[in-house]
Each structure stands twice: as C-alpha cells, then as structure tokens.
C-alpha cells in the first residue's frame, strides 16, 4: 500500500473515532439534560402546588364556608375566617379529617405533604400530614397569617 493510501486510511479511522466519540458525547449529554429538565419540571410542579395550596388555606374559608361543622359535607378545605386570618375551629376540624380525604380535596393527591402552623415565637400550634422523608427533596413554603389575635406562620412541606 502506498504511503498516501495509508494516510488516507489513518485519516478515515481518526475521523470515524472522533465521530463516534461525538455521538457518544451527544447521547450522554442529551440523556443527562433530559433527566435534569424532567427533575426541574417536577420540582416546579410541586412548588406550584405548594404555593396554590398555601394560598387557598390561608385566604379561603373553604366550601361550604362552615365546613368545619360537618366535615362530611365539605367540598374544599380552607382555614381562613377572613383573608389571612386562620380559624382554630377549622384547624381542629382539619385534624379530624383523614389524610387521603384532605389530600384529594386539596387536589394534591399526587404528592405528599405536611402542614405546620407555628406561633411567631416558634411554638408549634398545629401539625398535620405525613412525616418528612429523610431521603427525598422536600419543597417548603411559608406564609404569614393571623391566628387568635396573634401572628402565625403557616408552612407547607411537599414532596413526591
């Protein structure tokens, strides 16, 4: 084989090797990027659910407005007596409701959650839902609301 042919074959091998490396690099990159985007989308979805749920709980009295008198008749849970002023009676009623029912009624049955109401000094006033998982990413959001003439923080933690 002439020297020119050898160089041409070598060139072919090199270019084939580089093309293969490029393909492998693109496939791996595409996979990791797809996973990254999917995870980001899931986290955004949970964050949005947490935000909407918390907003509903602290701003809405629920449906019917006095659902706490008869939990069986409740259609939507809300904890507010008025805008950003949560009711102890509604908290007590919520604690009697089953987790699955609450989850379904709040429209968050695709995720797990924990609701925590604390006084501004840190004293825990109310806790509802599942225990926080140790090995999963948890999204936590906190809002402020009035509670029995004081201010409380209402915190929701959500995870898949």
């Amino acid at each position, binding site marked *: 084989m002439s020297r020119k042919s050898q160089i041409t074959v070598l060139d072919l091998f090199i270019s084939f090797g580089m093309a293969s490396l490029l393909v492998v690099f693109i496939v791996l990159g595409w996979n990791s990027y797809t996973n990254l*985007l999917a995870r*980001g989308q899931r986290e955004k979805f949970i964050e949005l659910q947490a*935000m909407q749920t918390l907003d509903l709980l602290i701003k809405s009295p629920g449906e019917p407005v006095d659902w706490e008198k008869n939990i069986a008749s409740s259609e939507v849970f809300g904890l507010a007596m008025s805008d950003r002023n949560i009711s102890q009676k509604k908290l007590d009623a919520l604690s009697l409701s089953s987790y699955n029912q609450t989850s379904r009624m709040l429209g968050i049955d695709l995720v797990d959650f924990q609701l925590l109401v604390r006084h501004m000094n840190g004293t825990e006033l109310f806790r509802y839902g599942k225990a926080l998982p140790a090995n999963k990413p948890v999204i936590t*959001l*906190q809002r402020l*609301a009035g509670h029995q003439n004081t*201010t409380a923080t209402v915190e929701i933690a959500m995870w898949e």
Partner: protein
Amino acid sequence: MMEKKFRYKKAFLFSIDALSAVTVLFLFFIAGVFYVAKANEDPLPELHTIRVGADVTALLDYQGTLASLSQENISISMRTLLPVQYEMALKLDCSGKDPLTIETSEEAPINRFIGSGRRVFLAQGLVPCIAEYQIWLH
C-alpha cells in the same frame, strides 16, 4: 505552477468551509443553551416573594399598625413579621399628608428582583391611604 495554485485555492476553500461549519454549529449550540436556560427560569420564587410582602402589609393593616401612621411602630412590627431572608420598604401615602417611608435596610438592590405591590387602607380619622411595598431577598 498552475496546479499548485489550484491546490492552494482548494485548501483555502476547504478551510473556509470547515470554519463556517464550526461557526454555524457553535451558533446552534449557543442558541440551544440560551433557550434551555430561558425555559428553566423559575418565576415562582419571585411570585412567593411578592406574596410574602402582601402578607406582611395585610397583617400590619389588620393589627392596626398601618392606621397609626407611626413610623416607629410600623418599623418594629415590620421587622418582627418579616422573615429573616427578606428586606422590605414600605411607603405610606395618605391624602393631605407627606408620604412616609419605612425601610428594613438602607436601600433596595439595583440588579436583583424586587417584588412590589399596593394595599389601600384607612388611617385614623378614616383618611384613605395607599401602602406601597417593595420586598427583596437579602
């Protein structure tokens, strides 16, 4: 001589072709990264920041602190209510009075997100006022 000149020209065109291809590829790559990064931008934390500002302003209103129009009382209550990761500025504008500004820090940042909103309330003597808040992360 003629053949050598032709070869040089061919090599030159080949280089230009390769350079153009790399440039186009690079542009595609940049555009891809730009759009993916843009699609990944998350507006929810910013929305949450605005909501925290609205909560603080609403609670100041419900407590009657805003109605007092006392700079000191509002400042103390605002610091108590505001979560530690946030800073806030509140401007109270009542008809017939000079605007009052209360801030938890020196000044708002220039190159970061600042959430803002308004709330209408009645001050003592049923004077209509507008509370305009600005809130941002530390």
